[in-house]
């Protein structure tokens, strides 16, 4: 039986003169080498060396110069947002015909940051990457972004129309400005006003955590079959967790990036959710990982829950499917504000300039245009956070004809939030790892794989380890 594999289907293997032993042995070894190497290549693709320097400079002409050449700009989003962004790019290129903006949209939010990380590792960030306060420190503390203070001082970027609290959200731990906030956003409660009314209940009492819990426990039996009072947000949502910590008067993070609050506070927080989950007031734990990240397919948008946390700027996208299905109207409600702290946290979006940019003048001009140009702001229609320049925000509220559904409500909501001194959190550079630890450990609790106390211990251990890694 020393025949070769050379007949019938064996032909596709290619070689007709080898013995079976030779062929199988060689193929096995080849496969091992290829497989082992393949597993490593993905890591190595991201490996670069050296570290870029972030330049500041103090010249009065910093960032001023000919606006021309190619400018790479990347953002997260899809559909309508891409259309809005492209419209602004077109207006900018009309004003500066010698510049060509190479826009790159990444549809998935998580993928956007992964892509940016790889690009930063290769010192190949786009000239202007869209940025968010939760992730900015990962880049500015590692010298991947250019400090923008000199561009503001020279007038290349004008931030005079933006409230100070918003501008300051773009500063790194060294006090330098690394992001020009272009859209203010916040997380908050959103509930289905129609469902709540049909259940014979008043609006959720968002003034106290215990009142809110009682309200959720009370409404759960008054909702139609298959509709839950709330999403289960103990691990899948970081914003409610910040609000819990901030309203108990403790910092979410220390200056060194470790968790800044007590373990007891975290135990209380997860117990608050566990009480609701065990009573059936939230969706079961098994439904958490199944929930889509696409706004139109979230449980709130599908009418599966009556109440959840949802960033104010998503109200339009989540209202649309509810309207189409005749399942009610959404309403925004703020997080709690106590004498100890404000649960509303600013999670601003903005634009940064890469340390590796070779077209500083065009990058500065683009950010300045996006931030301050009236026609540009109108074209973007506050798609990713309420426009940060107060004058432009007021103009959009006064003339909401260009705004999408639900946008006017969230602009008015944001105006209140900003006037109410929202909390600013100094997110650590490895915030991603903290979010992962939050989700994984609460998942263990909600499936009965860990006690609340042991999950809190593990969460603290993992989150604090991430701060020092």
């Amino acid at each position: 039986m020393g025949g070769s594999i050379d007949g019938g289907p064996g032909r596709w293997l290619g070689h007709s003169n080898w013995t079976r032993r030779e062929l199988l042995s060689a193929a096995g070894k080849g496969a091992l080498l290829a497989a082992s190497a393949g597993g490593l290549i993905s890591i190595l693709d991201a490996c670069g060396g050296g570290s870029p320097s972030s330049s500041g400079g103090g010249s009065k002409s910093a960032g001023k110069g000919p606006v021309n050449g190619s400018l790479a700009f990347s953002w997260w989003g899809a559909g309508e947002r891409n259309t809005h962004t492209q419209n602004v790019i077109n207006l900018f290129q009309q004003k500066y015909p010698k510049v060509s903006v190479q826009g790159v949209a990444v549809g998935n939010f998580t993928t956007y940051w992964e892509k940016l990380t790889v690009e930063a590792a290769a010192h190949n960030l786009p000239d202007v990457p869209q940025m968010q306060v939760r992730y900015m420190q990962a880049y500015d503390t590692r010298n991947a972004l250019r400090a923008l203070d000199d561009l503001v001082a020279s007038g290349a970027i004008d931030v005079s129309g933006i409230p100070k609290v918003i501008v300051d959200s773009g500063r790194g731990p060294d006090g330098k400005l690394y992001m020009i906030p272009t859209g203010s956003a916040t997380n908050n409660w959103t509930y289905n006003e129609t469902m709540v009314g049909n259940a014979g209940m008043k609006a959720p009492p968002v003034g106290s955590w215990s009142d809110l819990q009682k309200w959720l426990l009370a409404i759960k039996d008054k909702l139609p079959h298959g509709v839950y009072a709330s999403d289960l947000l103990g691990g899948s949502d970081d914003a409610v967790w910040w609000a819990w910590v901030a309203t108990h008067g403790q910092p979410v993070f220390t200056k060194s990036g470790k968790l800044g609050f007590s373990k007891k506070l975290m135990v209380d927080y997860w117990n608050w959710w566990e009480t609701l989950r065990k009573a059936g007031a939230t969706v079961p734990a098994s439904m958490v990982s199944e929930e889509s990240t696409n706004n139109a397919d979230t449980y709130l948008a599908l009418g599966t829950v009556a109440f959840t946390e949802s960033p104010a700027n998503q109200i339009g996208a989540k209202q649309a499917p509810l309207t189409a299905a005749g399942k009610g109207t959404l309403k925004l409600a703020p997080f709690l504000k106590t004498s100890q702290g404000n649960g509303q946290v600013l999670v601003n979006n903005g634009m940064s300039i890469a340390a590796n940019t070779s077209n500083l003048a065009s990058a500065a001009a683009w950010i300045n245009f996006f931030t301050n140009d009236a026609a540009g702001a109108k074209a973007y229609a506050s798609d990713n956070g309420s426009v940060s320049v107060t004058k432009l925000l007021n103009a959009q509220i006064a003339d909401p004809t260009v705004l999408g559904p639900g946008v006017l409500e969230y602009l008015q909501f944001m105006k209140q939030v900003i006037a109410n001194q929202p909390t600013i959190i100094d997110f650590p550079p490895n915030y991603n790892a903290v979010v992962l630890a939050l989700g994984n450990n609460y998942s263990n609790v909600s499936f009965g794989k860990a006690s609340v106390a042991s999950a809190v211990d593990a969460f603290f251990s993992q989150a604090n380890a991430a701060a020092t890694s």
Partner: protein
Amino acid sequence: MTIGNGAKVAGARAQGRRRGRWLGADGPAAYLFLTPWLVGLVGITLGPLLASLALSFTHYDLFNNPVWVGLANYQQMFLGDPTLLQSIRVTITYVVVSVPAILVLSLALAMLLNRGLQGLTVYRALFYLPSLLGGSVAIAVLWKQVFGTDGMLNQVLLVFHLHGPTWIGIPSTALYTLVMLNVWQFGATMIIFLAGLRQIPQALYESAQVDGAGIVRRFLHITIPMLSPVIFFNGVLGLIRAFQVFTSAYVISNGTGQPAGSTLLYSLYLYQQGFADYNMGYAAAMAWALLVFIAGLTGLAFLTARFWVFYGDQG
């Protein structure tokens, strides 16, 4: 006899000289044609491979220069990382269930197709199709839909008045949906089995039948031994592939390894370390530990092969 041997030696020397001249004349041209492959091998495979080995002894956050930490990453792996242990447990369960399952299913189908079926090429192509699609993100997304609360599986169960759970949302079943996705890609394994089955001489079966051997005996005493090199080959390849599965776990759990860490495969945790925790030195150490483990396992398989793999060319 001596003269004859001498002639053979002389002939071999002459052949060697001819080969040498051939290489001498065309060698540069051969190397020129090989250059793209050599550049790829050194630049894309060997270079990064060695670089990752060096990085595994460093703290490297992707942005700044790596800092030498010696064996710290390996020490942390073996002594201070409970999440790694969890991912190893999940991965071993995945491998232990999915590799035998794919071998059994593909062998069964190969034997079915080997019975002189009409339209064999069509069936072969159809069964092979999932192997081409199976590793893709699109199929993993589809899988998420199939095993969701309102997914295809539960719709089928509903016909029998059974209300299925969300298979991907429960820790006890989530991993097995990934196993099924792996098993679904049985086509390549099946084609290799089919090739092996066709190499078994029919005379053996006919003789056994004349001696009164039934189907089971013929399968156990002819098919399995004669097919053992192919089983060995498919098994080793399946092990290597299964230990490195990433895409399906990443897509189905949104990159988290949830619910309750039940889909946190080794490669997914490695990815999290590298790209969520910016801990690329540790991720590189994990990659090398996996490489050494797979190499060891493959070596063990080759060592034990002499006891159960029948190549047919043994004395």
